């Protein structure tokens, strides 16, 4: 496997203070990396930086060996896909919501229809295609949001606590479906979560970020067995 994402000497400042520091982190092609840490640790900042929605103060992020700061923003963002904590669906039908990114890319109608159908089936929302976004339950809306991201066939999938706003039964169903899809799909994914159990179920490796610093990266079992420092130990204890 080769690295799709390489982070080198990254420093991001927000509101004048250091929000995230990562000396070095690589994400292999096809890997699912879970990012865990307490609230305000800098997990979402990492995803926003990876989507080039915020710019680093120092250092950089390489995508396929090229610095994303040297790439055209639009061209780069069309290689990735972002799922937020809330589904953030537009006031349109489920079909149009799933097809949104394809419409931005000017995909032809037949291909668009086929891809929307494929991913709406995979996410179990095929029967909802004609419904308005406002008529969906929280779980359905998040499934639509996942279909909207997968339909783009992104090289890199960024997910910011996508299941935190749904109830526990829906959450475990969604997690299982996502875990199945990712294990078949081998798509490079970075998944932010609060939950180490969730992280262990879905990811190959876990990165722990505390107070804006990357503290440890490794297999979930490894992190549980040998926390890098007291901060990681305390965080794991709280979970």
């Amino acid at each position, binding site marked *: 496997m080769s690295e799709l994402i390489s982070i080198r000497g990254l420093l991001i400042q927000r509101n004048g203070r250091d929000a995230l520091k990562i000396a070095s982190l690589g994400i292999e092609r096809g890997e699912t990396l879970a990012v865990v840490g307490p609230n305000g640790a800098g997990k979402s900042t990492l995803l926003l930086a990876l989507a080039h929605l915020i710019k680093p103060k120092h250092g950089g992020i390489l995508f396929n060996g090229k610095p994303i700061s040297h790439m055209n923003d639009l061209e780069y963002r069309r290689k990735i*896909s972002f799922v937020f904590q809330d589904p953030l669906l537009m006031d349109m039908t489920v079909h149009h919501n799933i097809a949104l990114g394809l419409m931005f890319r000017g995909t032809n109608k037949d291909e668009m229809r086929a891809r929307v159908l494929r991913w709406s089936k995979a996410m179990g929302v095929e029967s909802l295609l004609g419904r*308005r976004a406002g008529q969906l339950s929280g779980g359905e809306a998040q499934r639509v949001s996942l279909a909207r991201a997968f339909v783009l066939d992104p090289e890199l999938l960024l997910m910011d606590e996508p299941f935190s706003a749904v109830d526990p039964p829906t959450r475990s169903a969604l997690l299982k479906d996502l875990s199945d899809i990712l294990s078949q799909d081998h798509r490079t994914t970075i998944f932010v979560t609060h939950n180490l159990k969730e992280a262990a179920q879905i990811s190959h490796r876990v990165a722990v970020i505390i107070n804006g610093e990357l503290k440890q990266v490794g297999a979930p079992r490894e992190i549980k067995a040998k926390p890098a420092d007291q901060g990681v130990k305390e965080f794991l204890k709280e979970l």
Partner: protein
Amino acid sequence: MLFDNEIFQITLLSLQVSALATLISLLIGLPFGTWLALGNFRGRSFMLSIVNTGMALPPVVVGLVVAISLWRSGPLGGLRLIYTPVAIIIAQTIISAPVVMGLTAAALESLDPRLQQQLLGLGASRLQMIWMLWREARLPLLAALMAGFGSVISEVGASMMVGGNIRGQTRVLTTAIVLETSKGEFDKALALSALLLILTYLINLALTLIQQRGQKK
């Protein structure tokens, strides 16, 4: 009197100048309001406060400033626009543009700020993102349009000062009402007022129906 030729011409001119002023306000207010809502620059709050103050501009003050500018000896006197329908359109645009601008900014600011990031994260270009945000805020944007039109179809001070209320040339419904009232012709003034109210109601009814259709979609 209500349906004679002169009334028809006055009504038509009222609709023409106010519709054109609203359209120009929309062309100025929509992009500028969007820039104010989405921009992240120094002085943004100050500019928003200026626009919000502009939403309450007294028409008579606008009329005075435009009249001085367009007066023969004024800086734009050479254009010979004073006492023409164009002068009324200019004054009405100055009145309604801040209304459209301020309400556009408010409509876009009321959307979830993460929506911009989500749209960019899905590969939208900046223009595609703005188009989708306008689409998402279409109901309050339509309300901005209605408020912009309402602010000019009903104003009298500016139209009177820069148009001069010249019969057959710059007389609009509101200035005709003032004239008939000053002559003591209250029945005519009341009939014109009723006509103005009915027109305003019909236009707002049409826009409200469009707005509600958008809500159901």
